[in-house]
């Protein structure tokens, strides 16, 4: 039985569970940040549905250049909580050796690229990656996510332009959450984002990114187009940043929250309500899902917190394949203390 379109009940349940885990994780991280356990966080609350839809649509072979607010995307794609926490904590288990701020993931094994802070600057890389994969005849397309603010950057322009000129299989997905820190989308641009591809001959589509079914349906067309080798495609997913921009931000300065955790318009609640209505789940399932998510997340943070930080002298590694005399000398001089 399918809850809608091609979505089976099992898939819907899985998606729901992952959304709950993502939400629970997000809340946990914020409290860990307040306690000084984790340094920083950009909450993904409110954007889970489109992120889960992307992960559901993507093949394992597809390469994803995500951005810093994609927690649910990683979880749906199967990245274990342990690895996520290791990065957030910057501990010695972190695949990136504690080099980046929290939320700046790079899960190569799951065919993710590397998240960076400068907004939009991953986008030109997607073009080169897609070129390389086509040239080396690798399977899969390249998918990238970014915010509404990112569409203003020069990198966005450069990337769409090049992807179009070289007819590359890149699926650009804008998670338009209505805000770039304090700047609403209405002040960010006078054009509709999904139409911005027109400047490059790239088709576009807007989807309701807070609705799993609508997101999946909308993405289908985009994935089909790109997989067929017709070139890049631009999706604008309308969603909403439920919390502050980051743990350093105070949204009261500039807006009234329109969607809050657990309210009727909360995207997870919407999925929940749909599944309840269709009898796919019941309220005890919801309770147990939330409880077990909480237990899992709490336990995992507890566990990962005990992992020590990387060796301090490792900060001199990986500047180059082989450190130059400069890093070696500085490593010696630093002698592990400030």
């Amino acid at each position, binding site marked *: 039985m399918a809850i809608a379109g091609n979505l089976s009940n099992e898939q819907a349940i899985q998606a729901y569970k992952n959304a709950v885990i993502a939400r629970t994780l997000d809340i946990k991280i914020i409290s860990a940040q307040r306690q000084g356990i984790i340094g920083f966080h950009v909450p993904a609350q409110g954007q889970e549905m489109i992120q889960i839809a992307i992960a559901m649509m993507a093949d394992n072979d597809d390469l994803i250049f995500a951005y810093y607010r994609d927690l649910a995307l990683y979880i749906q794609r199967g990245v274990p909580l342990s690895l996520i926490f290791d990065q957030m904590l*910057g*501990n010695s288990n972190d695949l990136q050796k504690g080099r980046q701020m929290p939320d700046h993931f790079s899960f190569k094994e799951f065919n993710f690229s590397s998240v960076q802070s400068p907004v939009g600057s991953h986008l030109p890389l997607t073009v080169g990656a897609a070129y390389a994969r086509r040239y080396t005849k690798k399977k899969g397309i390249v998918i990238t996510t970014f915010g509404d603010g990112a569409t203003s*950057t020069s990198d966005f322009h450069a990337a769409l332009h090049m992807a179009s000129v070289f007819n590359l299989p890149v699926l650009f997905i804008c998670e338009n959450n209505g805000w770039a820190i304090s700047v609403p989308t209405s002040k960010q641009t006078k054009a509709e984002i999904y139409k911005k591809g027109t400047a490059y001959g790239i088709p576009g589509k807007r989807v309701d990114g807070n609705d799993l079914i609508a997101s999946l349906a909308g993405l289908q067309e985009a994935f089909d187009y790109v997989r067929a080798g017709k070139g890049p495609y631009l999706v604008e997913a309308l969603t909403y940043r439920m919390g502050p921009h980051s743990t350093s931000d105070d949204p009261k300065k500039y807006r009234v929250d329109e969607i809050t955790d657990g309210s009727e318009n909360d995207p997870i609640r919407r999925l929940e309500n749909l599944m309840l209505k269709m009898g796919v789940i019941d309220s005890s399932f919801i309770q147990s899902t939330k409880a077990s998510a909480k237990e899992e997340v709490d336990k995992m943070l507890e566990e990962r917190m005990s992992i020590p930080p*990387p060796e301090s002298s490792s900060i001199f590694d990986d500047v180059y394949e082989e450190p130059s005399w400069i890093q070696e000398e500085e490593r010696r001089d630093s002698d592990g203390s400030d």
Partner: protein
Amino acid sequence: MALINMVQSLNKTLEELMGKDERVIVLGEDVGRDGGVFRVTDNLLNKYGDERVIDTPLNELAIVGMAAGMAMYGLKPIAEVQFQDYIFPAFDQIVNNIAKMRYRTGGRFNVPLILRTPYGGGVRGGLYHSQSGESYFVHTAGLTVVTPSNPFDARGLLVSAYKKNDPVIFLEPKRLYRSIKAEVPDDMFEVDIGKAAKLKEGDDLSIITYGSMVPTVMTTVEKNNVNAEVIDLRTLLPMDVDAIVQAAKKTGRVIVVHEAPRTLGVGAEISALIAERAIDSLLAPILRVTGYDIPFPYTHEELYLPGEKRIMSAVNRVLAY
């Protein structure tokens, strides 16, 4: 006189400059409603309206290019780049348009803008919220580069930058935004561009520093009773060559301290100026205590930043020489 921190000092000065000169326009990401992510532009929107305090789209090239166009045609824009790490998308506008406009037009156009940006580490910001990129600007003739190390200089340098008819890169050490308070006069005053400040007299050696490292150096020498003179450059382009050369001649022992990476950091130019002009006075090597030649790490950032131990180790080496 009020006891205020650097954010308050900058905010107050911006507000007053806007009040006295209608040509002053503030623009940048989140500078309006939000008052800037560090609150340096707080309340300016309420007071002066959105024609003069502009929340821009997310594009630094556009912000800086637009500010440059404003400056060429009669306004006095004060643009903010949210973190210095994000100034590079505007680098072409800065190097190729702003720095060269007066020159290329034979002096018929100029670009009197101020480009404010918080720089430096110490806020657990990792690779992309911690960079100290002053060298990229100091190498660029046509720019003026200043950095205050305290609330007083912040106000004085901002007023001086405002009076200049050429582009000023105004680097704000974000670590010091709220960590120090100082008495700052209510009247406007200037801190001369191009003039260093001697923060402390001393005979045994000279420590030349600026911006974010000033309090670290001062605390270190005071705590360890080092008989050092301490110089705060305040302006990085043009540097106060006289102050630098005099320091070398006076003590013969010079240490430079900055947060930016060593290779071609500002310390290199200081060394070179001394090696050119005061070589015979030198009694010891010129040592550089600086950030490392690596990207700015997230974990162990305290290791990256020059601190007491590294400064004292250089002091002792130089004194023992």
